[in-house]
């Protein structure tokens, strides 16, 4: 299994009672009232330093993603930190992957810009980019960026087609799309990886998006926040069923999974050291996203809305995350917490059961302090990582969704 470090860039100094104020953690969260410039600087330098620490500690890759107007991940454009990481990969770990879990093609009004940024990152990193292409969160695409909810998915598809063509067309072309028009598309640069970098599609588990992901030969990525013991069977069973129906082999590398993890010497110590940060991070972050912001009217089609009303099970803990306790989070495995032995076992069980080939671990969340995070990264890298990397190794499956890199051809 490939195991990468995934980081968000939360503002780390949210007030302790934030989740009790009833204020959302996204879209309208008051900035000046909550943020001190020096602490914003701290939040970002620690974010970058922790990713670099992960890179140096031997993770297979480093990963970031996009969230606009979000207090728990201040990353309106993940390609900015990715550019820092691209350079570090080139200099220090040329075999590592640079995973951008996504610039959202449903949110963007400038799809070509995403194609070009990704191409640059692939060039800067030496062909190490994994290009994430999420539809995008409803609140981010629709409220933050003004995309009509009902257009989000159609825009995603069109922007995807444009991006792919801009990467692969041998000739410049005119793009007369419904949502964007360009008189001549001829991107400089294009990705080093041919025909294009591996594509991962993070999603909430919508059957339509899963089918599309499979049809295009991309990998699917899901995340643990809503409690895998509640949701994982539903989501992954659905995915593999759809894969069977599309005649796609059950290659575990087709699936990525984001799991938050805290590790210490013992299970008790893990709860003691990290418990309050974990709890607050979930309550103040995803737990404080108003539920209706996850699907504004039109974002999910009429059949989908009806299905969700009849059976909201895909969303697990989402409705109660604002009040979740550490115990609930650990019991539902929204977070895996414990000794190296516990963490190894729980992740391995899970990865084997659901056939996960690309794991992304999130080792910092919310206000978790920098020192404690570095310790979490070090312990995980030393005590857990090598064991998990053995999973699927030497088996029948190729990781077709891992960056190929490029051999250096010209001596300086």
């Amino acid at each position, binding site marked *: 299994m490939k195991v990468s470090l995934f980081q968000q860039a939360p503002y780390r100094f949210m007030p302790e009672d934030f989740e009790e104020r009833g204020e959302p953690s996204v879209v309208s969260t008051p900035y000046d009232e909550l943020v001190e410039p020096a602490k914003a600087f701290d939040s970002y330098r620690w974010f970058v330093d922790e990713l670099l620490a992960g890179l140096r500690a031997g993770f297979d890759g480093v990963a970031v993603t996009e969230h606009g107007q979000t207090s728990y991940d201040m990353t309106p454009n993940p390609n900015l930190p990715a550019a820092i990481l691209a350079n570090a990969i080139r200099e220090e770990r040329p075999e590592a992957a640079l995973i951008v879990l996504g610039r959202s093609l449903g949110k963007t009004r400038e799809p070509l810009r995403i194609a070009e940024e990704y191409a640059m990152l692939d060039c800067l990193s030496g062909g190490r980019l994994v290009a994430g292409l999420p539809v995008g969160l409803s609140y981010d695409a629709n409220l933050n960026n003004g995309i009509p909810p009902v257009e989000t998915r159609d825009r995603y598809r069109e922007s995807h087609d444009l991006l792919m063509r801009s990467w692969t067309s041998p000739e410049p072309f005119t793009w007369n799309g419904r949502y964007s028009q360009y008189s001549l598309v001829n991107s400089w640069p294009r990705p080093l990886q041919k025909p294009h970098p591996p594509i991962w599609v993070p999603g909430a588990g919508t059957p339509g998006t899963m089918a599309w992901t499979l049809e295009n030969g991309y990998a699917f990525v899901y995340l643990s926040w809503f409690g895998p013991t509640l949701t994982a069977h539903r989501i992954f069973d659905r995915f593999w069923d759809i894969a069977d129906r599309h005649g796609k082999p059950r290659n575990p590398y087709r699936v990525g999974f984001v799991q938050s993890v805290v590790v210490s010497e013992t299970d008790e110590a893990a709860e003691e050291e990290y418990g309050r940060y974990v709890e607050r991070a979930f309550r103040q972050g995803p737990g404080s996203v108003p539920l209706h912001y996850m699907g504004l*009217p039109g974002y999910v089609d*009429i059949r989908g809305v009806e299905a969700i009303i009849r059976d909201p099970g895909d969303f697990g803990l989402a409705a109660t995350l604002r009040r979740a306790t550490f115990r609930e989070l650990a019991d539902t495995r929204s977070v895996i917490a414990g000794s190296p032995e516990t963490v190894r076992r729980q992740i391995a069980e899970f990865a084997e059961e659901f056939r996960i080939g690309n794991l992304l671990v999130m080792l910092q969340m919310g206000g978790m302090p920098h020192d404690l995070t570095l310790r979490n990264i070090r312990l995980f890298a030393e005590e857990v990582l090598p064991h998990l990397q053995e999973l699927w190794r030497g088996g029948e499956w190729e990781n077709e969704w891992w960056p190929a890199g490029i051999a250096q051809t010209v001596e300086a």
Partner: protein
Amino acid sequence: MSRGTPSLEIEERVVPVGDGRVELVVQVAGSGPPVVYLHPAAGLAWDPFLERLAAEWTVYAPQVPGTAAGRPDAIRAVDDLWDLVLLYEEALRRLGLERPDLIGQSFGGMLACELAATFPKLPGGLVLLDAIGLWREDAPIVNWVATAPEQLGALLFHDPEGEAARAALTPPEDPDAAAVAIAATTWAIGCTAKFVWPVPDKGLVKRLHRIEAPTLVVWGREDRLAPAVYAEEFGSRIAGARVEVLDDCGHIPQLEQPEKTFALVSEFLWQQRPAT
């Protein structure tokens, strides 16, 4: 959603428009001179106001593509507001309506203005019920699409606990019917939002002066979605418009002040008819 009472017979006319690209569903009920009713963002509902109207008039109620039952994907065929206005005008022409009166509620009020401004000879009279479509920095329109479902009552009604609010917002008791109804309303809000997102100001202020039809503007004084200052905005920009602001009334006068609203609208509509 179209909930007709047993007494009201509703006929569904499917009108192909846009060179066959869209089949516009128009619900028709009643008898008498033609009135076109343009529904609000949440879709068409045959409320008591429309039923009373249908006793004196033939009510034609086109449904925004995507909001008609069984045709949710029709919204994808319509690009934008300009496209929608042309499709509606074409449909009214195909129905053979001679200078019909236009009544528009909220989103439908904006659409009625766009039709009346783009095609000044199209309507007989124009009635706006708490229309959207204008924007004042000092009185921003509340984003109803982003409003939590449990807060819609307080946004739309002067008295969120009142009978009118309850009748409009309580889903059917049967869970199956409730799922269907909630999904339909949610989707209708999503479909209509396409034409006004993210700010419901698409330049109507520049076109209102083109309207030639006699106009009645009815507003709820306690409208929290589109504050009553907009009644004057519409009234002062449409030549000769008459403005009526109703007390104890929110965004939907025909539900919260049905008697007064019906009396005003009915009187106004009959005034537009040449004596026969």
